[in-house]
């Protein structure tokens, strides 16, 4: 493998009281790849993203970004190093306009901007996600898909190098899904490294270079989408759960 490793987890573990949500997880993500992180409900995917983004501290294990440990860093320090994320339940800034939501990313992210520069950059990001005409709208007026777009635009406005998407494609109708997949592909082509937590199989097949499959907090398989989705253990994990995939 020639592409450098961007992010790696070694023995990452997260305990909530007696529950081990993520257990001794290892994986590497290489530059410019889309890595799928899949698994049945409750298998620890979101928790893994929370550990990487610094939303939650690890119980044990290490996480490194281009060889530098980020395990003990705060969420803001990790964000400034160019790791950005969306949330499974969309989080917007409710008192602000769409443009101000996106400016938040432009002003404080990995690259910091201010004034006209920040605003112009935020507008460009709104164009990227196809929302430039709603810039002055209040976020309360938006449809569900548009709230997802605003969140992605905010995240992109911070010029991330690594993007963590937590079920960003969930709940979209077929046309929106196609647009969403095309958008993520474009981001990858522009040089982003992406971890995609997803249940939508079409998206996983068409976007992911590689997948890590989790079940009950542990990694049960790793490989190309075709490989893992035909792995008997993976099928068992999914069917064993009451899962819509």
């Amino acid at each position: 493998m020639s592409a450098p490793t961007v992010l790696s987890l070694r023995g990452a573990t997260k305990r909530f009281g007696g529950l081990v949500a993520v257990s001794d997880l290892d994986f590497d993500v290489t530059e410019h790849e889309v890595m799928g992180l899949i698994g049945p409900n409750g298998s620890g995917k979101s928790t893994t993203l929370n550990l990487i983004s610094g939303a939650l501290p690890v119980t044990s294990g290490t996480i490194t970004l281009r060889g530098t440990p980020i395990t003990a860093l705060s969420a803001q320090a990790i964000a400034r190093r160019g790791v950005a994320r969306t949330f499974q339940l969309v989080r917007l800034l409710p008192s602000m306009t769409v443009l101000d939501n996106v400016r938040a990313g432009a002003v404080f992210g990995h690259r910091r901007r201010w004034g006209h520069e920040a605003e112009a950059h935020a507008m460009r990001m709104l164009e990227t996600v196809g929302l430039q005409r709603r810039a002055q709208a209040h976020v309360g007026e938006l449809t569900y898909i548009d709230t997802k777009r605003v969140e992605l635009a905010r995240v992109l406005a911070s010029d991330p190098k690594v993007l963590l998407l937590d079920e960003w494609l969930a709940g979209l109708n077929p046309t929106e899904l196609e647009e969403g997949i095309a958008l993520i592909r474009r981001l990858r082509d522009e040089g982003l490294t992406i971890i995609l937590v997803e249940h939508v199989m079409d998206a996983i097949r068409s976007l992911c270079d590689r997948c890590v499959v989790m079940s009950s907090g542990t990694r049960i398989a790793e490989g190309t989408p075709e490989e893992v989705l035909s792995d008997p253990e993976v099928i068992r994990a999914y069917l064993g759960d009451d899962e819509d995939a």
Partner: protein
Amino acid sequence: MSARDWQGLSISAVLLALAACLPLLGDDYYLTIGVTIAMYTVLATSWALFSGPTHYISLATAAFFGLGTYCTALGIENGLSYWMTLPIAAVLGALVAGLVGIATLRLSGVYFVIFTLGLSELVRQIVTWAQNVSGQKGLYVLTEITEAHIYWQLLGLGALVYLAGWAIGRSRLGFALRIIGDDEEVARHSGINTARAKVLLFMVSGATASVVGGMLAPRYIYIEPSTAFTPMLSFLVVIMALLGGVGRLWGPIVGVIPFTLLWEAISASFPNQTTLLLGFSFLVIVYLLPRGFVGLLEGLRRRVLQREAYA
């Protein structure tokens, strides 16, 4: 600066100049009320600088105020000039606010409220204890400073607070605080150092309250812990700020003026009913004016504009 900024600035300057003429009326009663209004305006506005965007309700105003009062009183007693004691009060207030902020701003919601209330009580107990040890009961603050001087000083400080608030509102710090108030998790994940932003603003409001306490010290003449650290002050500041509305810089003063006048009227005719007014105001704010007078005014304006748009 935009045309609107200039307009706001000139209107504020005219109002300030008008307010500065109050002592020239030569009416002691009006001047006393003027000092009270100016004092609460400074306290409530600087309180709202921190609490407005972050939604952290601080009941520590009395702690900072008392700190400043004692700082000035002790400074004068030890031979410092009055004017030297005010910057010292500011630095001391900022330092204490910084320490308290670092220790407590991780606390959320009600825990922060309780802690700040406890802080005022704690500082008061410490001062009382220190006085008992030194065998003193209270302190005399004897200066040449008149009520009119105090009034003008408070106006000047008020102007500073407004300028600071305006500058913060346009700065990255102000934007960061608005984001924190909307969703702290998003703020952290956008790369904002949330703890630093909150502590900085808490220091601004702590320093301001401390200087106000210092400026008021000459008015008390004789100070003791129970007057300098009265918890009532913290509650009044919160109520007035919320009554006016903390979403705008000019919100608190809109609450301070009517409330102070009402308070004065009630304490003059029914001195025992002031607590009732306090409780009643809380109910009004919670049930009728969750966003204060400012929210009410803006709601009305929006409705009028909409009606015009449909007409």
